[in-house]
């Protein structure tokens, strides 16, 4: 059994992956922290590696600290290198 975490991508992140969502699947019962989930994303999506240093995970539309626990039903998005205005 496994648990899926859907992470939304925008802008250069979506361009790099070619998708607007990446699905990360972890063994059921795994409750990753934000930094753990981002490490898995980086491993599974190596094309994002050059950008990950500047990247934060948004959990339910707020920037998460590295130790914040993430649940599969959270609203997740990778945010970084924004340049509006």
């Amino acid at each position, binding site marked *: 059994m496994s648990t899926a975490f859907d992470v939304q991508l925008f*802008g250069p992140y979506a361009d790099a992956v070619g998708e607007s969502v990446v699905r990360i699947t972890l063994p059921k019962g795994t409750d990753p922290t934000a930094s753990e989930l981002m490490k898995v994303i980086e491993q599974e999506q190596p094309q994002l590696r050059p950008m990950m240093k500047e990247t934060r995970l948004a959990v339910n539309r707020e920037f998460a600290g590295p130790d914040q626990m993430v649940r599969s039903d959270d609203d997740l*998005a990778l*945010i970084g290198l924004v*340049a*509006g*205005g």
Partner: protein
Amino acid sequence: MTVEIRIESGPLDAATSFACDGAGAIIAFEGIIRPDEQDRPIEAIEYEAYRPMADEKLHELAEQAMQRYGLKRIRVTHSEGRVPIDACSFRLEIASAHRAEGLEAMGWFIDTMKRDVPIWKRPRFVQQKESAP
């Protein structure tokens, strides 16, 4: 209302009146689409916003600016979608008692927005026509 935030589709309309009782300074900034990016001609910029986080973050920043600089009023308008060159994609209007805090708030808001508000831009480059043989 002292804080107003709007994300609008396409280029922004011309500015409307921005009055404020008791203000000694009204400062407005407009971001206009330049005709080139990275030394290449463009025809437009496409803005993509992660909503509603973008709305919430703009509101949060505006509230912070009000408190931090003691502003009297702030209005933020940002485009999403396609904005052609020479059109306005971002407008920040600030009313303050004196110019110093208004000017400082303007720089702080724009710098922080570019770091923390999830709005991305993609340049749409002019397609170069192949030259005839």
